[in-house]
């Protein structure tokens, strides 16, 4: 049986490797702390296997996570190949702000490179030539990823070998994506006629460092959600909500969840951060537990209601403020103004869809 744990160990190994490489990379202004960040993260993955199997205590893992968060949160994580210090939180990451010296009323010049620091990316002219050479073949390895993932997710449960399912039950999608990532490397080696996967690892490290601590954030938010639930946040809000909401009134509860997701996302600038809060408060206790709604539909549409909030908030700088700079717009709110007339009807649509399909 293929177990999902194998892939978690593989990821752990990859990050340990990144940690070692970063710690030895003199082009990284904070190489020791950055290397420590990645190496510790790498160690968390195999250790988690023992926590899940209940053969090791969970608290050392919790402690390491606090250390990792402290390293990143106090700006001790830097990208390799950058002479300057790490970008502060809230700064533009990976966006290339080479503002033209032209007058702002001139048309934008087409062209221009992608941003981000790069450890190994070929120069733009070289990539243009390679794109010319390979053309649409470039999409083959990339398209293999969703195809393989979907195959494992849909057909995986029916593949039985020797009386046992080939893929670990309940993890078919996750195994599918992980396997797809590895199989796609083999496919690209064939397409690009590469002899070894070394380049993939170098490029993987480049993207990993580009993303930085943002990689760990979704998992940390998941952790926060669990702490919220354990500490009784859901119960505290739930009792308040049920005091306000008349018993068994479905539509107001749906509206409260969707609008709440949007509003919290506007305040925080991040739907992922709003999700555990609102789900612990309304989504789970009221809509799923009390009203018996379909959890998959409620949570999916709840998250998308948060995205409506993302369209309206300057807090989501990467999406709404960075383009203002990139496109030389005069008003900071130009992009948000263009999005508001879509976001509001879409939020209403989400409320209607949830009310109709989930109950």
């Amino acid at each position, binding site marked *: 049986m293929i177990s999902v744990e194998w892939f978690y160990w593989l990821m752990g190994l990859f990050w340990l490797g990144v940690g070692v490489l970063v710690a030895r990379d003199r082009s990284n202004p904070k190489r020791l702390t950055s290397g420590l960040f990645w190496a510790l993260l790498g160690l968390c993955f195999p250790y988690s296997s023992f926590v899940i199997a209940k053969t090791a205590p969970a608290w050392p893992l919790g402690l390491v996570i606090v250390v990792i968060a402290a390293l990143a949160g106090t700006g001790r994580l830097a990208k390799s190949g950058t002479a300057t210090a790490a970008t502060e939180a809230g700064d533009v990451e990976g966006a290339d702000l080479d503002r033209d010296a032209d007058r702002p009323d001139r048309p934008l010049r087409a062209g221009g490179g*992608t941003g981000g620091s790069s450890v190994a990316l070929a120069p733009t002219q070289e990539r243009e030539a390679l794109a010319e050479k390979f053309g649409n073949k470039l999409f083959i390895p990339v398209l293999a990823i969703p195809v393989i993932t979907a195959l494992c997710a849909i057909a995986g449960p029916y593949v039985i070998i020797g009386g046992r399912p080939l893929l670990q039950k309940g993890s078919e999608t996750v195994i599918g*994506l992980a396997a797809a990532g590895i199989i796609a490397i083999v496919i690209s080696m064939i397409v690009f006629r590469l002899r070894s996967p070394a380049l993939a690892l170098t490029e993987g490290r480049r993207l990993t460092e580009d993303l930085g601590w943002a990689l760990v954030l*979704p998992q940390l938010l998941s952790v926060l959600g669990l702490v919220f639930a354990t500490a009784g946040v859901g119960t505290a809000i739930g009792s308040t909500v049920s005091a306000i909401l008349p018993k068994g009134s479905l539509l107001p509860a749906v509206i409260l969840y969707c609008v709440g997701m949007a509003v919290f996302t506007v305040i925080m600038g991040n739907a992922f951060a709003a999700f555990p809060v609102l789900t612990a408060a309304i989504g789970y206790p009221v809509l799923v537990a009390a009203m018996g709604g379909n959890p998959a539909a409620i949570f999916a549409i709840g998250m998308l209601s948060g995205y409506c909030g993302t369209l309206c908030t300057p807090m989501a700088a990467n999406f709404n403020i960075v383009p203002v700079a990139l496109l030389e717009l005069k008003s900071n709110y130009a992009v948000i103004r263009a999005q508001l007339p879509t976001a509001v009807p879409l939020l209403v649509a989400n409320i209607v869809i949830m009310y109709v399909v989930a109950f």
Partner: protein
Amino acid sequence: MLVLLGILVVVVGFALRLNPMLVVTVAGLVTGFLGGMTPLQVLNAFGTGFAGSRSVSIFLLVLPVIGLVEHFGLQQQARRLVSKLARLSTGGILAGYLFVRQVLAAIGLMSIGGHAQTVRPLVAPMAEAAAVRKYGPLPDRVVQRIRAFAASTDNVGAFFGEDIFVAVGAVLLITSFVDTTYGFTLVPLQVALWAIPTAIVALLIHGTRSLLVDRALRREMAGLVPEAVAR
């Protein structure tokens, strides 16, 4: 009720643009302590939560191949594809890009588009050029509106496409969080399927608005270049 201070920490921390890693960790610690948990229990919850939510991070195994294909010119090729839209009207270009971006995001190709990668070098200049072709030089406020709308098509397409892909961060965040916290066993595929109705509505609303940009342009330019509008 004290535990609600933890939520306040999250809201205020994110609003003050502090480092999110720090905000989330502090909020977790504060909430745990206020909820009457011992330090050991809080750390145990952190550890259990992390171990149970590793599936959120599994998409990292795809990074090497994405990086590899980028090395061989993926983004350049994507640009060449989008530039085939160049013959369309301004609204057509915007609507076409919205559709392409949403479909690509839905099959997990998030990094192909983006403000730095496609909007600035491609979509905005093309949409602008289509209007210039038709009306000649444009007043600044019109240029500003076209550019802002180009940025909006990228956001809407990406946001309401990506959740259809079963293994995107948002879907796995949902499943891992509710599975770890409430003991569900949600299938990512089901969560992803429920994103489709909203995606279709988003495409209809923003696509229609994109096409209406042409009409707004005509109204806007009628007073300035009547002969171009008459064509």
